[in-house]
């Protein structure tokens, strides 16, 4: 749907508002658990892709502080429950944005774990109460009734957007769009070269190693910088 509207805007040179959405995730227990590293590898081979997505991205809307020690649940489990610090560090640097698909990300996780299993004299175990529980989620998208009429309004609107709204437009968008880009970049793309620099800067924000608040701050920062310069360098 978005692709069609964007194309129409491009063709007709019309102004197209960005409809602001918000979202919430409903967490679902898959019933799949791992007690040790070998089980984690085995479960990773077959678990539904949406579960891998959840443990990298969906977790950001779960109750937690916005400054997590680790950016994915696998690394956190390796550190806190398996007490394998080397593995935790290796898993922590796996950046999901480096992989074109969840299947490719799955393979990378399995590779890292395989390598660690090969190095380890003993298979790392967690206590009975500290198993890894695979989760997934369903997403409910809300209409905020808000629109951003044109890109120049972004610096005013962005600071007030909830973190879940930022999640929807900046993270969830990559799953929805065929091009795999965020909503803001796709929207600016509809205006052609006019906002090309801004679009590229938004697209280059490091979304994985930034917290949700940091992503919002960076968005505000680049939009304020580019759009307050009276069109120069837009």
């Amino acid at each position, binding site marked *: 749907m978005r692709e069609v509207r964007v194309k129409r805007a491009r063709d007709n040179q019309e102004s197209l508002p960005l409809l602001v959405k918000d979202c919430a995730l409903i967490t679902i227990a898959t019933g799949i658990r791992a007690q040790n590293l070998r089980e984690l590898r085995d479960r990773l081979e077959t678990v539904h892709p949406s579960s891998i997505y959840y443990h990298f991205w969906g977790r950001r809307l779960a109750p937690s502080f916005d400054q997590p020690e680790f950016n994915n649940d696998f690394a956190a489990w390796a550190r806190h429950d398996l007490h394998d610090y080397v593995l935790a560090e290796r898993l922590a640097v796996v950046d999901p944005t480096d992989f074109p698909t969840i299947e490719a990300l799955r393979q990378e996780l399995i590779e890292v774990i395989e390598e660690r299993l090969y190095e380890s004299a003993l298979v790392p175990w967690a206590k009975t109460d500290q*198993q890894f529980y695979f989760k997934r989620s369903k997403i*409910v998208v809300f209409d905020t009734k808000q629109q951003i009429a044109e890109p120049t309004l972004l610096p005013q609107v962005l600071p007030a957007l909830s973190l879940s709204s930022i999640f929807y437009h900046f993270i969830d968008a990559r799953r929805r769009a065929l091009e795999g880009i965020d909503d803001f970049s796709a929207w600016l793309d509809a205006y052609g070269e006019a906002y090309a620099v801004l679009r590229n800067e938004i697209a280059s924000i490091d979304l994985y190693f930034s917290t949700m608040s940091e992503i919002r701050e960076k968005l505000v920062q680049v939009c304020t910088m580019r759009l307050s310069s009276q069109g120069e360098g837009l």
Partner: protein
Amino acid sequence: MIDLAHYAEVAGSDVIEHLRQLAALLKGKRVVHVNSTQEGGGVAEILEKLVPLMQQLGIDTQWDIIHGNDDFFVCTKNMHNALQGNVVDIPERLLHVYEETNAQNAERLRDKLEAADIVFIHDPQPAPLFKLCPQRRGKWIWRCHIDIRHPHRPVWKYVRNFIEDYDASIFSLVDFAQPLPHEIFVVPPSIDPLSEKNMDIDDDEVASVYEGFGLDLERPIILQVSRFDRFKDPLGVIHAFMLAKKYIPSLQLVLAGGGASDDPEGKAVLGEVRVAAAGHSDIHVLALPSNADRTINALQRGADIVLQKSLREGFGLTVTEAMWKGKPVIGGDAGGIRLQVIDHHTGFLVNSPEGAALRIRYLLSHRDKLQAMGEKAREFVRDNFLITRHLRDYLALMVVLVYNVEERIELS
């Protein structure tokens, strides 16, 4: 009844708008909640709030209680303990009472439950109603409020038989769930920030409550609010207090709690606590009536530190309540306390009376940390554990079930 709009002031107007969008898809649907007690305990407390709010959103929501005799509640209390891991074998005679009581309640509730679009059955007490309502037309959801990750297997095997055919289950934490052949949602519980128990009250009222119980607000106070239940480890709290008091002689302990009508063990545990506290003038054991919400509010606000040293815990709403009042919590490393007490951020997780005593001493001698942790705790609750979030989750999963949502649903 509090108007939904008032929650916007605490939780934000966008949150209320989300609720309205979700509720629009459920307009006219008949929803029934069934549990086993109307007062006392966290389940009744949550339903007291959720049901009127769902009604305000235009969803035809009712709340029914199943009735039973003393044997029924002895049986379900044993069941509750066994599902939480105690090795308790329930005699055939009591299981017969359990099934018979549910059959009698089904006679009374059957028409309503079979006609409902969505039925929430809370905890194991009314679980057999599903099989006793064969003409049901709606979606049936089993809402488990307790931690059943390590149940006593024979009892779980018995209870599971009543649950496996439900359309979905809800657990408070992913860790609490048992594998079941249907979708398992994870919905942490919540507190109502506008209720008597959690609303802002002035310092004079707090002082008056403390004075009434002979407590001195000028001296440090630690508090545990919970049922008199062995899983809450009140004797462990007294032990921790005694260890800490050696170093902080002015320390006072308040153990406040009430019973619930479905908890026959409470009296026995209260007796044990009174024996352990005997002769210690700075230990105050308060057996409060079920309508003492405002008193509990004042006690929580006046305490320096709140403890919840549970050995096993469902979610631990008293932890949420204390955090909402800006108190750091020293909690047992168990159940839902782990989700709320983020170690070194909103309080401390402990595994022994010694650990609790150490943290009491630390916080009372680092007042700046105590203050900072308390502030962090309040914001954490605002973001994650208010009733508006809980209601949103319930509405969302009802929408998911009623409309067979696979991955996502867009509302307008």
